């Protein structure tokens, strides 16, 4: 057994694996800093209008990270995310009206129900990929929006559906007792979104994350490496659906009233487009996508520009991503900034050096 190769490994063992380099520490500090600013400074600095839209950004960041996980990590394209989101909102609303359970528990239950639904939807994913999977999920989402239009969202009525059409005074969906005001609810939403991001991070840095990357590149090679591709694909669907369901739960509390027209099936397509634009290979991409989807319309509205321009912008954005920057804005912008920085340095650098040498000569 022991041959020269083993003797050679002696020197190899000095490699320290997975050491936290300075980059990791800086990144952790940046993330913590941003989170603290969002939690403590932002609600005080922003107007009520922007607190509202930033709450939606938190909700959509969860939607985006869920879809980004499927598309970017595993290579599964789902066009049914808005339906899953709506189911999360529906279950949350129904449970909040029917029971007096604490909000976090209701969120967990909503997440668990969408997880079950999402895993069922994921079953065709075991055999289908790419366009066909996208079509199947879009059909399911379309079917669901019809169901939703007939059943309506619960609004304090009785029975399984909890819909009361004749009610004049519709009770609002309650919020957690610690977060009844808008700024407090914004903090709550950010905290929940941060937890969801941490959940995804914990997955992608460990065994399932590596398995997903292997599956994305080649399923036969993944199987040959001993990866249970069926289980890991369903796991990805379950996780993404859980997060999307929780996002639905946070959305329900944010808007107080739910209407089926707020969840059109085509929103799933725009979501996919913008998630691709933001970048599916990094978690920052999900945040960029959420800002594009929720903060940008709010800004345009504030400036008096029609939000219809967004559809054109997103269309151009997707085209640009697909042709020049497959890793999205989250990857491209820092790279371009670095390139710009180098360019500026190069144009000022030599002159500077020349100045120094002249000074030395003098």
């Amino acid at each position, binding site marked *: 057994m022991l*041959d020269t190769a083993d003797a*050679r490994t002696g020197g190899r063992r000095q490699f320290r694996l997975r050491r936290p380099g300075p980059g990791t520490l800086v990144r952790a500090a940046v993330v913590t800093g941003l989170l603290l600013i969002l939690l403590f400074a932002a609600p005080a600095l922003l107007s009520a209008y922007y607190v509202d839209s930033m709450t939606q950004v938190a909700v959509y960041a969860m939607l985006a990270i869920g879809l980004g996980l499927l598309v970017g990590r595993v290579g599964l394209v789902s066009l049914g995310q808005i339906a899953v989101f709506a189911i999360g909102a529906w279950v949350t609303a129904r449970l909040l009206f029917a029971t007096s359970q604490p909000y976090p528990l209701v969120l967990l239950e909503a997440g668990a129900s969408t997880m079950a639904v999402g895993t069922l939807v994921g079953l065709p994913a075991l055999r289908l990929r790419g366009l066909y999977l996208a079509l199947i999920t879009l059909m399911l989402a379309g079917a669901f929006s019809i169901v939703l239009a007939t059943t309506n969202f619960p609004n304090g009525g009785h029975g399984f559906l909890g819909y009361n059409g004749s009610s004049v005074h519709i009770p609002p969906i309650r919020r957690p007792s610690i977060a009844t005001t808008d700024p407090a609810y914004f903090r709550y939403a950010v905290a929940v979104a941060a937890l969801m991001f941490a959940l995804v991070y914990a997955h992608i840095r460990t065994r399932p994350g590596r*398995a997903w*990357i*292997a599956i994305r590149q*080649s399923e036969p090679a993944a*199987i*040959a490496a*001993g990866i249970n591709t069926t289980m890991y694909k369903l796991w990805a669907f379950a996780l993404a659906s859980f997060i999307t369901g929780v996002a639905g739960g946070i959305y329900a509390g944010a808007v107080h009233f739910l209407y089926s027209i707020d969840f059109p099936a085509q929103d799933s397509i725009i979501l996919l487009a913008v998630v691709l634009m933001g970048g599916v290979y990094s978690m920052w991409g999900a945040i960029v996508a959420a800002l594009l989807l929720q903060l940008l319309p709010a800004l345009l509205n504030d400036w008096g520009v029609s939000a219809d321009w967004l559809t054109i912008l997103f269309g151009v954005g997707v085209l640009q991503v697909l042709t020049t920057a497959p890793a999205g804005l989250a990857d491209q912008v820092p790279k371009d900034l670095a390139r710009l920085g180098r360019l500026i340095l190069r144009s000022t650098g030599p002159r500077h050096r020349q100045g120094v040498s002249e000074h030395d000569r003098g």
Partner: protein
Amino acid sequence: MIEVKDLTVRFGGVTSLDSMNVTFEPGTCGLIGPNGAGKTTFFNVLSGFVRPASGSVRAFGDDLLSVVHFRRARWGLRRTFQTEQAIEDLSVYDNVAIVHEHARQRGTARRRDVLDAISFAGLDVDPHAKVGTLGAGQRRLVELARAVVGRPKLVLLDEPAAGLPDEETRNLADVIGRIPSRTGALTILVDHDMSLVSACCQTTAVLDFGRLIASGPTAEVLRDEQVTRAYLGTADVT
């Protein structure tokens, strides 16, 4: 020892493997034949990607075909692919570790095993380097490291030297030749490069149109008239 009995694979009207009967003895065995002879199909049967119409494969006393495909890595099966399949977005270390992780090599130290496999393959790169940044030759070696990590019983190498320059092929031949003595695994090598096959393999089997036409010591097999004819594409009509 691998005993293949009456193995037949059909894709619609095409018979890719036609009652193949062959025994592979421990060591490094070559499997050669013209394009379309069924070599990769045979590997795909062993990997569980293709279900044979009939036949059996006994590997070290186990009925390999009854094992679910992804569990075969845990059993001890490793393979490489004709088109290299090292995972671009993972580091060299993670590429090898993922096999160790999912093949559930219990009771062994993962880090040591993985670094051993990397150095056995002769990969002189930083284990943290992303595979996407490596050259073609190095990526082939990453695949080889993936194939020998842990405790493999059967290693299948599908044209591991495809597209490599001569010198790298010689290095590869050296590493492949040492797999059985190091890991104890039976190694089957498919390649069109006869110098690689004769350098690594004690025995060789030859497939042509899904039929086994020769098997035995490599030097004898390569001299076989029928084999030459299969490769040159002239078949006598009898």
